């Protein structure tokens, strides 16, 4: 080999040195490439909740159609949808509402949103057609609330290209009143998160809708048609980065069955556009007015603080809820509100993409939040794309646990990257007290480890046995219904609120229960998890406590206290009238 040959060979193979690889591997979503924290030694403490998927036995056998079965060519097909636990017929038993998608290629036989009536024996009957709810399209989010204060829960559904409002007629049927209510919007929009919220405290539920991005099947290249849409070198669906983000919307309830778009007037429309997903409303700073928090994908999340004059200011950055502790945006998907440290204030959990942690924010007062993800032990789990979540006491020990569902957005990936499967298990962290959590990889029943591509999740006690069960949306599969077969001696208390001066659903109320030296706050919400809606009856696990004190702050700011309430029962509290109903559930 002569000198020139040697040099030519070297020059051909020589590589520059730099940080380009990292720069060029950025995909379409915010993922930090975070490595998990080390796992500590297992506590060895018993966990008394055991979950079994009883969906098939319960009659929930129809798959939730969402795009092609083996690929996701467009981001629209990958986002999935929410689920709801609601009592649409006021019989005291939770019914189930499941959203559905469709396929671009054409309608799929049997694909529709579905309403299942609870038969009170562990099974459900599909009453979709009877209820007038048959509809096939791209549905995303659902919020449940009685917007016309007639005592029956109504349904608002976000979707692409339009949203839908179903009024509950009170006789087992629903009517699509979207147009009559003034909620049809011009053009196509991709509505995602939605929540009923009485932002002006006039006793009527207004409506907040977050929008994801500008979507058009004909303008966005499908998987494989754009070289810039790849993840770990594999062509995948495009977005959200690179696509046009949207602004949220706010509609004021006029009290006559119609709504007025107050997006601009309220200041909501002034926010920087973002990829908005789940939206929740709760009074996070205890000032009697609800904030609205939106999990935003790959853009800073948004927190709207009410100025008490009908307008909002966006304060997520100053509150610590916009970005992670290093100041970078995350791929916000689902939101849970709960009081994990039982200090009487509402904390926040937000789920994200894979190779990132979910974020747990501790409420330190005055609308300030501290990111305690790593301190709490949640940093051990970074493997999955995470979606619907909850801060919920699953074992009734008086300490709210953390649960979320997972599933990839890129089914193509597992063919070349078997370490990144499309279907992934559920994640459960048990609360050890002292602000610490421990992931339970097993020991909480077979349903936790079962793998699905899940999205929405709702929590509720469908069998009225005094614990929390879990309803989960799985893409192109039947839903999962995780029955909680709880053992142990933990007590519990359920609180159902009925508004009189406030909206009848009492959405926006905060209930604080004091028991065994702890104070736990929970909010009555119309939306939670990922684009979903949970049991309106608040469930408090109480551990060894035999009685509990209850403080209620109603949505209009009025306060009510109830002392030494007996546990292991559902109490119904009517605004201004105290406890009007008590029901003991049996296991």
């Amino acid at each position, binding site marked *: 080999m002569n*000198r020139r040959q040697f040099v030519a060979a*070297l020059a051909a193979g020589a590589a520059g040195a*730099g940080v380009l690889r990292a*720069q060029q591997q950025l995909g379409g979503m915010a993922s930090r490439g975070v490595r998990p924290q080390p796992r500590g030694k297992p506590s060895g403490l018993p966990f008394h909740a055991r979950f079994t998927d009883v969906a098939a036995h319960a009659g929930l056998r129809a798959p939730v159609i969402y795009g092609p079965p083996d690929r996701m060519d467009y981001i629209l097909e990958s986002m999935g949808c929410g689920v709801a636990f609601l009592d649409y017929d006021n019989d005291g038993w939770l019914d189930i509402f499941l959203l559905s998608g469709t396929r671009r290629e054409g309608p799929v036989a049997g694909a529709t949103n579905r309403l299942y009536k609870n038969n009170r024996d562990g099974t459900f009957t599909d009453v979709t057609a009877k209820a007038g709810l048959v509809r096939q399209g791209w549905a995303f989010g659902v919020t449940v609330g009685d917007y016309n204060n007639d005592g029956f829960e109504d349904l608002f559904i976000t979707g692409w290209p339009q949203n839908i409002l179903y009024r509950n007629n009170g006789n087992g049927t629903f009517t699509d009143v979207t147009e009559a209510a003034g909620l049809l919007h011009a053009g196509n929009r991709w509505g995602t998160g939605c929540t009923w919220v009485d932002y002006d405290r006039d006793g009527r539920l207004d409506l907040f809708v977050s929008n994801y991005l500008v979507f058009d099947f004909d303008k966005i290249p499908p998987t494989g048609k754009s070289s810039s849409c790849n993840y770990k070198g594999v062509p995948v669906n495009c977005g959200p980065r690179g696509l046009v983000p949207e602004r949220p919307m706010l509609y004021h309830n006029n009290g006559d069955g119609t709504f007025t778009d107050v997006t601009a007037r309220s200041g909501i429309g002034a926010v920087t556009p973002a990829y908005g997903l789940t939206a929740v409303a709760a009074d996070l700073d205890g000032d009697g007015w609800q904030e609205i928090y939106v999990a935003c994908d790959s853009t800073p999340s948004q927190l709207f603080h009410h100025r008490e004059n009908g307008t909002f200011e966006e304060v997520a950055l100053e509150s610590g809820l916009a970005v992670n502790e290093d100041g970078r945006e995350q791929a916000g998907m689902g939101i849970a509100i709960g009081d994990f440290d039982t200090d009487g204030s509402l904390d926040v959990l937000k789920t994200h993409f894979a190779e990132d942690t979910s974020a747990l924010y501790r409420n330190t007062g005055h609308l300030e939040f501290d990111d305690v993800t790593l301190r709490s032990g949640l940093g051990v789990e970074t493997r999955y794309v995470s979606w619907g979540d909850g801060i919920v006491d699953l074992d009734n020990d008086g300490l709210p646990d953390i649960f979320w569902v997972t599933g990839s957005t890129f089914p193509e990936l597992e063919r070349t990257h078997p370490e990144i499967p499309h279907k992934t298990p559920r994640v459960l962290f048990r609360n050890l007290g002292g602000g610490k959590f421990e992931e339970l990889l097993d020991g909480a029943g077979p349903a936790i480890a079962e793998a699905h591509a899940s999205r929405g999740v709702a929590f509720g006690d469908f069998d009225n046995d005094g614990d929390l069960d879990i309803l989960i949306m799985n893409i192109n599969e039947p839903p999962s219904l995780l029955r909680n077969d709880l053992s142990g001696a933990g007590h519990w208390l359920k609180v159902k609120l009925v508004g009189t001066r406030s909206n009848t659903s009492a959405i926006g109320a905060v209930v604080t229960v004091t028991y065994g030296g702890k104070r736990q706050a929970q909010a009555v919400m119309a939306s939670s998890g990922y684009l979903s809606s949970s049991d309106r009856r608040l469930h408090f696990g109480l551990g060894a406590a035999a009685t509990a004190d209850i403080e209620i702050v109603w949505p209009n700011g009025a306060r009510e206290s109830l002392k030494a309430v007996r546990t292991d029962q559902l109490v119904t509290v009517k605004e201004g009238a105290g406890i009007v109903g008590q029901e003991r559930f049996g296991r």
Partner: protein
Amino acid sequence: MKWIAAALLALAAGICLAQARQPAVQQPGADAHLSRGAQLMHDQLFDAAAGEFEKALALHPADPRAHFQYAVCLLSLGRNDEARREFEKVQKLAGESRYVTYYLGRIDLLSNDYASAIQRFRSLAENPPYPDTAFYLGVAYVSSGDGNDGTKWLERAAKLQPGDYRVHYRLARAYSSAGREQDASREYSLYNKLLNQHKSTETEVRACADALRTQPISAAAQEVCQRMFDPNDPEKLTLLGQLYGDAGAYEKALDPLTRAVQLDPNSYEAWHNLGLTYFRLQRYKEARAPLEKATALRPEAYGSVVILGATLYMLGDDEAALPVLEHAHRLNPGDAQTTAVLEKLRAEHAKK
């Protein structure tokens, strides 16, 4: 990587002591694995890099450099407990090292052991091994609930790393928690400005790479890429030079890379890319000095060492080329071209 190289050089002093106590052992394979591991680390292929370090350690279990690089790699993989054990082995083999203390502090922080993290980082306060030591000390204090000390150290970190948006965000949060709204507002503004700059760099890099991919060396691509040109930012200049170089626009790469080495004379990436560019342009005289700088900064970087050897060889300085290519061969014994040239040089050397 620059920081790791600095740590390795510093550790070398300790290694000398350790080696002095042992019989001299010839381990050509270990160096090759270390070099390959370092390159894989640089390419963020941590699993593969760990494999190389394990092979190096199998050949030379008492090499603290190998334990150190392996430990850093394990930390990058999130295998923190194993990383801690490896760092502790480095301490046993090479004595106390502030670089090791720094990493053990980082692991403490990740493990929520704030007291230990504070103790370790505090011990480094006078002579910090890396610029972000103050930042992690501030974070440890804030996490432990000591907002006052946390703020103090984050303020120091902001002075040491004025361009790091993370530092300003954490400091803003600390001010906000302390009710210092005006200070918080100032830091949030800085954070926003720096983050936007960071994001626009990401966008510019992607746009330039795309433009060069579709229309290499065209005026249109150069117009897109010149948007990255910032005469005061060595990292952006290096990126721009590398993008041009990768696209074959070597002449265009020279200006940003020359500016980059002037602004940051300790940047291995800038020196390597500048030397490589001259080498590709067959301007061997001008390639020599930058490559010598690069190999001084990262003696284990096979890519730089072999190009320097070839440059010397092309300059006809065979005496100088021989030891450099011998070193390159130790770093990568599988390189057939280098082996062939080496054999030739050795034979000529023997004749003399």
